[in-house]
């Protein structure tokens, strides 16, 4: 019952006028950001983070978390109406959302998406509330070897589970870590990696320079190239009668969104997985377990419900390791984590002891954000549809301007604005060759935690690497990480063996 007491105190904080106003604002901004093709939660959070310096840190985080939530709802709107996902997390929503819209049932899809998002959000926040405190309590005992092992596990999930080119994934992780090492050595304080002896590299590269470069400038250039030609928008009629009828249809899908919410939450916890694969998996499972799998892809309501419940659940799931362990479960939470560090809030188990008001205020704000996102989403569907007509040739330059201004405001150095441009363009060019960019962003945020953990561990053990393996918690984590690292290799060997077996049999 202590939990309920803490939670109700959290609600008092979340409903303070400033916080409450920011939660609603965050939800609205998130809905727009999510709805616009080419912009997802990570772009919104990265570009708008510097703007939140106006308010106290706790309020700023609530705003950004609400934005994250809103974006998960918003992504469905353009998936359904335009047939192009508003964010990668809403890709699976196009599969059945678009056919429904073409059939003239866009309102059904939109409302199912909003309600499924709400269901997924609610279940996952309850799970979050239950899991976070015990996990934080366990994590309080973690020493340097455990922290390093956890970091290894986080990066191993990218190699083992993301499905990207492995060499390029490792490259992306390492370059992000190296970028975080530029400036000076945190332990000895000596200048380090002052690249090309430029004065600008004598201090650390702020993670926002990379995040805004990649997710502001790089992402816009990518979207401009990919989204040639205009899209067709469907019509939606929204009346009270139809809303009520749709509610009933939605209730019949409760099994689907229940399953999808749990699946999404646990997939969301994994750093490399997150909302996009979570929603695709939920779609797959919904289709597999459906009595009428043939309807999927032709406009099945379950086909909208499953991915939307899962992507919201995953976004909450990804906050669990961020807050309790200090390891972000998604690129968006990586940026959030970086922001928290700027504000002097060190994410990790200590947060649950030292910043108890903040933690529970944030958790309560998630409940509030989830509810308001659902209400605002359904109430203002016509407004979002109108907004979706904004041509990209107006939105894109505004994002470029926001990126430049936000990048400057973060560090107040023109050097960083140039660096941001170079990293953004570089990231775009590398992305065209299938180099994944998310691991680098995670790495630049986690680098400053990983390096001291490694060096301190080795100091304790006098250079013996076994320190990571012979402790009761770090050992299993490290072994899991190593299995994940070699998973693609095992898979390749397995495929080769099966092919050989198949060839001799055939």
């Amino acid at each position, binding site marked *: 019952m202590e939990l309920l007491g803490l939670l109700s105190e959290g609600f008092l904080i979340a409903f303070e006028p400033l916080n409450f106003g920011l939660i609603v604002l965050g939800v609205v901004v998130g809905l727009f950001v999510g709805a616009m093709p080419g912009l997802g939660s990570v772009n919104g959070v990265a570009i708008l983070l510097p*703007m939140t*310096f*106006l308010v106290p840190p706790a309020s700023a985080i609530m705003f950004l978390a609400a934005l994250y939530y809103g974006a998960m709802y918003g992504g469905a709107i353009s998936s359904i109406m335009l047939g192009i996902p508003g964010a990668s997390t809403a890709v699976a929503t196009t599969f059945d959302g678009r056919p429904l819209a073409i059939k003239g049932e866009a309102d059904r899809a939109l409302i199912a998406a909003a309600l499924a998002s709400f269901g997924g959000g609610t279940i996952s926040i309850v799970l979050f509330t239950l899991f976070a405190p015990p996990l934080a309590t366990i994590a309080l005992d973690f020493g340097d070897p455990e922290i390093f092992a956890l970091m290894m596990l986080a990066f191993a999930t990218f190699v083992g589970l993301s499905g990207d*080119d*492995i*060499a*390029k994934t*490792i*490259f992306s992780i*390492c*370059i992000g*870590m*190296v970028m975080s*090492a530029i400036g000076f*050595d945190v*332990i*000895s304080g*000596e200048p*380090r*990696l002052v*690249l090309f002896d430029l004065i600008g590299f004598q201090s650390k590269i702020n993670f926002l320079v990379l995040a805004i470069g990649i997710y502001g*400038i790089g992402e*816009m*250039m990518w979207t*401009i*190239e990919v989204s*040639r030609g205009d899209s067709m928008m469907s019509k939606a009629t929204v009346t009270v009668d139809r809303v009520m009828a749709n509610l009933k249809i939605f209730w019949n899908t409760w099994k689907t969104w229940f399953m999808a919410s749990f699946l999404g939450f646990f997939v969301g916890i994994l750093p490399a997985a997150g909302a996009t694969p979570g929603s695709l998996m939920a779609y797959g499972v919904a289709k597999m377990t459906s009595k009428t799998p043939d309807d999927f892809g032709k406009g099945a309501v379950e086909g909208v419900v499953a991915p939307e419940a899962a992507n919201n659940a995953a976004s909450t799931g990804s906050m669990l390791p961020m807050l309790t362990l200090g390891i972000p479960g998604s690129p968006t939470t990586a940026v959030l984590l970086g922001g928290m560090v700027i504000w002097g809030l060190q994410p990790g188990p200590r947060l649950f002891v030292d910043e108890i008001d903040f933690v529970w205020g944030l958790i309560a704000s998630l409940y509030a954000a989830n509810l308001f996102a659902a209400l605002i989403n359904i109430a203002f569907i016509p407004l979002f549809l109108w907004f979706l007509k904004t*041509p990209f*040739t*107006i939105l*894109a*330059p*505004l994002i*470029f*301007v926001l990126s*430049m*201004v936000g990048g*400057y*405001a973060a560090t*107040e150095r*023109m050097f960083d*604005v*140039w660096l941001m*441009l170079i990293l953004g*363009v570089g990231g775009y*060019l*590398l992305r*065209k*060759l*299938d180099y994944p960019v998310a691991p680098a962003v995670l790495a630049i945020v986690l680098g400053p935690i990983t*390096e001291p953990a*490694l*060096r*301190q561990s*080795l*100091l304790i053990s006098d*250079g013996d690497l076994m320190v990571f393996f012979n402790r009761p918690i770090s050992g299993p984590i490290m072994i899991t990480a190593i299995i994940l690292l070699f998973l693609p290799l095992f898979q390749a060997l397995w495929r080769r063996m099966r092919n050989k077996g198949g060839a001799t049999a055939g």
Partner: protein
Amino acid sequence: MRRAELITGILMAALSAYLMHKSTELPVGWISGEGPGGGFWPFWLAAFMLLSSIWVIVNWFRRSSPPSQSDEPYMDAYALKMFILVGGGVTAMIGLVEIIGMHLAAAVFLIYYIRFLGGHNWKTTLSIALPTPVITFLFFDVALNKFLPTGLMDPLYIVLYDIFL
């Protein structure tokens, strides 16, 4: 695409080698009593970068990664045109910051993009390009006290600061 993959692989290998070299400015080995030296971490990370770049190049020769099999151009005519017009525009905007300040550079960039790249009419263009610097000024300079660069337009801003601050 194939050529771009190889060139990028070689460039990234060179970058990794440079980073490894740069890391050795600090001790990369064991310092007794202090543990690994300051260059240890970036050195080995850069070493892994180099190894993965070589792996990318090996994959190129074996034609086992999608970009190394693709015959499509790395950038077709449209992509290249947009890359030059958009990337060039953003670069010019940041360059202009040093001369006319960030607020005005943003306005010039918006006019360039919305009117000339986007082909919108002047009314739409100006209704976005003109309020933007005012809003960024009020938000950053006035509300946040984060003074955005003014370039050579200092005298103008001294007057504005007098009025608003």
